[in-house]
C-alpha cells in the first residue's frame, strides 16, 4: 500500500519540522485528555474505593451500573453532553459548547466509569486481605480508603493509563461537543476524521502514527515512573 509508505514519510516530516498545526493539535489533545483524566481520577478513585469497601443499600446495583457504563459509546456521551451544554439545554448559559471545556467534560464522563469500575475491583480484592487487619488497627473509614489507594497505587496507575487511552483515542464525543473547529477544538482524532473525509488518507494515517507515538510515550513515561517507585509498592 503506497498510503502506508506515504504516511510514514509524512509522519516523520511532520514531527521533524515540528509542524505548528500539528504541535497545536497534539498539545490540545494532551491538555484535554490529561485534564479529563485527572478530574476523572480525582472523582473515580474515591468512588471506586467507596464501592469497594462501602456497605450501603444499592451498592451491588451501583457496581453493575458503573461496570455497564464502561461500555458507553463515545457518541452517546457526546450527544448527552451536547444536549446539556447546548444553548437550548440546561447548562447552555455557560456557553461551553464547542470549547475545550466541553471536550474535557465529555471525556471525563467517558473515563470516569472505567476508573471507578476497575479501581473498585482492584481495591475490593485488596480490601479482602486488609479489611480485618485495618479494623483491628482501628483505622477509620477514610483511613482505609487512603491506605487501600496508596497500597494499590501500582495497579491503579495501569487503570489511569487505560482511562487515558480511552480519552486520547476517542473521536465520537469530542467531535460532537467540540465541533472540530480549526485552532479551537481540533484534536488528533477529529483531525484524523477530517482528513479521512477529505480523502487525504496518507495524512490521516500519518496523524494516526503520531497519535500512536504519543500513546507510546505516555505509557513509557508511566512505566519509568513505576520503575522509580520503591519496590515495596509493586505487589
Amino acid at each position: 500500500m503506497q498510503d502506508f509508505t506515504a504516511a510514514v514519510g509524512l509522519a516523520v516530516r511532520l514531527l521533524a519540522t515540528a509542524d505548528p498545526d500539528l504541535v497545536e493539535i497534539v498539545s490540545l489533545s494532551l491538555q484535554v485528555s490529561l485534564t479529563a483524566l485527572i478530574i476523572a481520577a480525582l472523582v473515580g478513585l474515591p468512588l471506586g474505593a467507596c464501592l469497594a469497601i462501602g456497605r450501603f443499600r444499592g451498592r451491588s446495583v451501583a457496581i453493575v451500573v458503573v461496570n455497564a457504563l464502561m461500555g458507553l459509546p463515545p457518541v452517546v456521551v457526546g450527544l448527552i453532553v451536547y444536549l446539556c451544554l447546548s444553548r437550548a439545554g440546561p447548562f447552555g448559559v455557560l456557553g461551553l459548547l464547542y470549547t475545550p471545556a466541553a471536550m474535557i467534560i465529555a471525556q471525563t464522563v467517558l473515563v470516569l466509569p472505567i476508573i471507578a469500575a476497575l479501581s473498585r475491583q482492584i481495591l475490593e480484592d485488596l480490601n479482602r486481605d486488609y479489611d480485618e487487619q485495618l479494623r483491628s488497627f482501628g483505622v477509620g473509614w477514610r483511613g482505609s480508603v487512603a491506605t487501600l489507594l496508596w497500597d494499590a497505587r501500582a495497579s491503579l496507575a495501569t487503570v489511569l493509563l487505560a482511562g487515558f487511552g480511552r480519552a486520547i483515542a476517542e473521536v465520537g464525543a469530542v467531535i460532537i461537543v467540540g465541533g472540530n473547529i480549526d485552532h479551537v477544538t481540533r484534536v488528533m482524532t477529529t483531525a484524523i476524521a477530517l482528513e479521512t473525509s477529505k480523502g487525504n488518507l496518507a495524512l490521516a494515517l500519518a496523524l494516526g502514527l503520531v497519535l500512536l507515538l504519543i500513546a507510546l510515550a505516555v505509557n513509557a513515561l508511566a512505566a519509568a515512573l513505576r520503575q522509580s517507585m520503591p519496590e515495596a509498592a509493586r505487589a
Partner: protein
Amino acid sequence: MPDIARPMTASAITGPGDGSADIHPFGEGRSGAAPSPADAILPLGVRGLCYRAGGRPLVGPVDLDLHHGVKTAILGPNGAGKSVLLRLMHGLLTPTAGTIRWNGRIADAGILRRQAMVFQTPVLLRRSVAENIAYVLRLRGWPRAQRATRVGEMLALGRLGDFARVPARVLSGGEKQRLALVRALAARPEVLFLDEPTASLDPASTAAIEAIVERAAAAGTKIVLVTHDIAQARRLADEVVFLDRGRLVERSAAFRFFARPASPEAAAFLAGDLLY
C-alpha cells in the same frame, strides 16, 4: 536492650507489683484482686456473650473475666468457637447478645487503640517491612522522631533488621509472622490477641514467636492466645479457658488444667480422644 513492649499506661507503670499480685489466684475467686486504676482497660468483662451466624449458634452464652498480668490461652478443638470469641472480644465481630465491658466501659475507638491482634495468616501491608511498623505508629500519632527509633527497636525484636527496606511480601512465612507480631506490639498495646499465630509455622519459627510473646508479657502486655496446640498452651499460658462447642466448659490455672482437668471434655481433649 530498650524497653521493648511495655504498654504506656498507668497500669504498666505500677505494673510489676500488680502483675505479680495477679498471677496466682486464678479462677473464679478473683474478687480479691486489687482494683484497676480508673483509666485501665482491664479487666475485660464478658457477660452472656452469644454469637450466631447463618442461624447457627457459634459461641455462647459465655461469661468470662480476663485480668491484667496473666497469659490466657483459649483452648479447644476445631470448631469450638475460639477464634470467634477472640474476634468478639477484640471488636471485629458484633455479638448477637451479651455485653463486653473494658474496666466497666463499652469498647470505643480509644479502647480499640489500646489493643492489637495477630492473625493466623499475617496480613502485611504492601509496603516495606519498616513501613509496616511505621504505619501503626503513625496511626497512633507517634511523633516522627520517636517513630524512627521505635521502628528500629521493633525490627531488632523481630530480628528483621536486615529487611527494613525490603517489601514485606518477600519475607518467609516465619518472618512475616514475626513482622505481624512486632508490628502489633509497636504501639505498646495493653492487650494482645493472638489467633493461632503459629499454626502454619515450623518449630523454630514457632519458638521465635513464643519468645517475643513472652517478652511482651513480661513487659506488661496482657496476652490472650487462641490455640489448639496443647504443648504451646502448656509453654505459654498461666491460665486456660477451655471452649467446647461454643461454650466455656472449664477455666483454671494452667498447671491445674494440664494436671487434672475438671471437665470430661477437657480430659478427652488432652488425651487426644474424639469426643463425639
